[in-house]
C-alpha cells in the first residue's frame, strides 16, 4: 500500500526531471549558422498581415530542412510583443512596425532586427458598395462606416498617420484588434470601408474591392524580424530568418505584394 500510494508522486518527479533534461540537452543541438540541416521545432510570432506569406514560407522552410518544424502565432504585433515580454515561448518575432519591435529589443529579448519587407495601406470596400468610396476623401462622408485597427497596433498607427498626412477627418465605427478583423468586417459588408494593407486586399482575391491610395498620399510601414534571445533553438531560429531574407523567401513576399526593404 505504501509503495502504491507513492506512484503519483514518483510520476510527477519523473516528469519534472525529464523536463530538466530537455533544457540541458539544448546546447548540444546548437549548430553553426549555415542554411544546412536546421532541426527541431520553433515557434514564430508574426503580425496578422503576414499570415498568408509566412504560412507558405514556413512549409517551404520545412521542406528544405527535414527535421525542422515551424509553428506560427499570428496576431496584432503589439499584443505579440506583450506576450513575448511576459515570457511567451517565442523563437522568432516578426512585427509590422519598428515601434513594436522596439518593445522587445528594449526588454533585451531581441537584438539587431532585420527589415524584410515594406507594406503600404489600401482602402478595402465590400464588393457591393452601399456608399461609394473612390478616394481617401470619401472616408469623411457623413454616415459612412469605417473600420480601422486600434491605435496601438501598427496598422492602426499607420492608418492614423495616413489620415493626418492627408488632413481627412475620419470617425471610425470600430477599432479592431488586428488587420484581419478589419478585413472580416469589410468582407461581411458590415462596414463601408476599412483601412488595411495592400497585401491584405491582394490576398483576399476578390472578396473585397480595393481602392488604391496614390503613392504621394500613402504611408508605409517596415516589417522587422529578429530571433528571440531566450530561444532554445537558436540555430533553427536563425536559419528561418535567413531563409526569409534569402531570394526564395523574398520571392514569396514580393508575389504577395510586399515591397522590398
Amino acid at each position, binding site marked *: 500500500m505504501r509503495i502504491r*500510494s*507513492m*506512484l*503519483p*508522486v514518483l510520476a510527477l518527479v519523473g516528469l519534472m526531471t525529464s523536463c530538466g533534461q530537455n533544457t540541458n540537452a539544448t546546447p548540444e543541438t546548437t549548430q553553426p549558422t549555415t542554411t544546412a540541416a536546421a532541426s527541431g521545432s520553433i515557434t514564430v510570432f508574426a503580425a496578422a498581415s503576414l499570415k498568408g506569406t509566412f504560412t507558405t514560407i514556413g512549409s517551404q522552410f520545412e521542406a528544405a530542412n527535414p527535421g525542422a518544424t515551424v509553428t506560427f502565432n499570428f496576431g*496584432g504585433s*503589439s*499584443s505579440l510583443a*506583450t506576450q513575448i515580454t511576459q515570457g511567451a515561448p517565442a523563437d522568432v518575432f516578426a512585427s509590422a512596425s519598428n515601434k513594436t519591435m522596439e518593445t522587445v529589443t528594449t526588454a533585451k529579448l531581441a537584438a539587431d532586427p532585420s527589415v524584410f519587407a515594406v507594406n503600404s495601406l489600401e482602402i478595402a470596400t465590400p464588393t457591393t458598395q452601399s456608399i461609394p468610396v473612390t478616394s481617401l476623401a470619401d472616408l469623411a462622408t457623413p454616415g459612412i*462606416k469605417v*473600420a480601422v485597427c*486600434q*491605435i*496601438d*497596433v501598427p496598422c492602426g498607427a499607420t492608418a492614423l498617420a495616413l489620415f493626418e498626412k492627408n488632413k481627412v477627418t475620419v470617425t*471610425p*465605427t*470600430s*477599432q*479592431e*484588434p488586428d488587420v484581419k*478583423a478589419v478585413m472580416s*468586417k469589410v468582407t*461581411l*459588408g*458590415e*462596414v463601408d470601408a476599412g483601412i488595411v494593407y495592400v497585401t491584405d486586399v491582394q490576398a483576399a482575391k476578390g472578396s473585397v474591392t480595393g481602392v488604391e491610395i496614390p503613392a504621394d498620399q500613402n504611408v508605409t510601414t517596415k516589417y522587422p524580424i529578429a530571433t528571440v534571445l531566450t530561444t532554445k533553438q537558436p540555430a533553427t531560429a536563425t536559419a528561418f530568418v535567413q531563409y526569409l531574407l534569402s531570394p526564395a523567401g523574398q520571392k514569396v513576399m514580393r508575389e504577395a505584394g510586399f515591397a522590398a526593404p
Partner: protein
Amino acid sequence: MSRRHRTTTQPPWPVAVPAVLALLFLGLPLLALLIRAPWGQLLSVLTSPTSLDALRLSIITATAATVISVIVGVPLAWLLARAIFPGRRFARALVTVPLVLPPVVGGIALLLAFGRRGIVGQYLDQWFGITLPFTTAGVVIAEAFVAMPFLIITVEGALRGLDGRFEDAAATLGASRLTVFRRITLPLIAPSLVAGAVLTFARALGEFGATITFAGNLPGVTQTLPLAVYIGLEGDPSEAIALSLVLLAFSIAVLVLLRDRWLRTGTPT
C-alpha cells in the same frame, strides 16, 4: 441538522498533494494579478476617461441584458418546465447551446443574423434604417445571447422542483392562472430568479468574444471592460491589470451574493 459525514482529520497524502496542487493552480494566477497590480496608480488609472467609459458601458449593457433576459427568459422557462408542446425537448436543447458555444462563434452567428447583410438584419436596415453591429444595442444583444441561458436554466430548474400542491390549492380556491403565477409561483421561485439574474449579470459583464465580433471595439460606444482589458494589454498593460481587478472584484461580489447556493456544503437546496 446533524452532520451525516464525519470529516476525516488526516487526509491520505496521495490525495492531499494533488489537491493542494489543484488549489495552487487555481489560486496563483489570481494572486499574481493582485501582486502585480499597479496599486500606487490604481485610482488614476481607474478614473481615466477610457476606464470610466468602459465601466459605465459595462454596467449599463450588462443590466440591460439581464432585464431583457428576465422579461423574455422567465416565460420561456415556465413554458419549458410546465407546458406540453411539440418540440419541447428541442427547445430546451436550443436554450443550452449558447452555454457551450464558443462566444466568438456566437458573435459570427449574430453577424450573419442581425448584421447589415444578415438574414434578418438586412430588412431591419432596409425597412427601419436600424443597424445593430457597432452600436451599444449590439453589445446588449451579444451579452443577452450568451447570458440568457443561465437565467432560463436556473428558473426552469426551480419551477420543476416546485411543490405543485400550493398552486393547486390556490387554483381550487378560485384564483385565476395569472394570480396563481403572480401570488404563488413567483414568490416561491424568487430566490432562484435572483440567483439566475445575478449569474446572468455576471456572465454578461464578462462577455468578450461575441461582443468584439458582433459589436466591434469603440471606446464609449461598444468598448466594455473585458474589451478594454484586452486592448489595454497591447498599449498599457498596467491599465489592463487595473481593469482586471475591477472584474475580479465583481466576480467575488457575485460569489458573496450567491454564497448560500454554492458555498454551503452538504445541504442541497
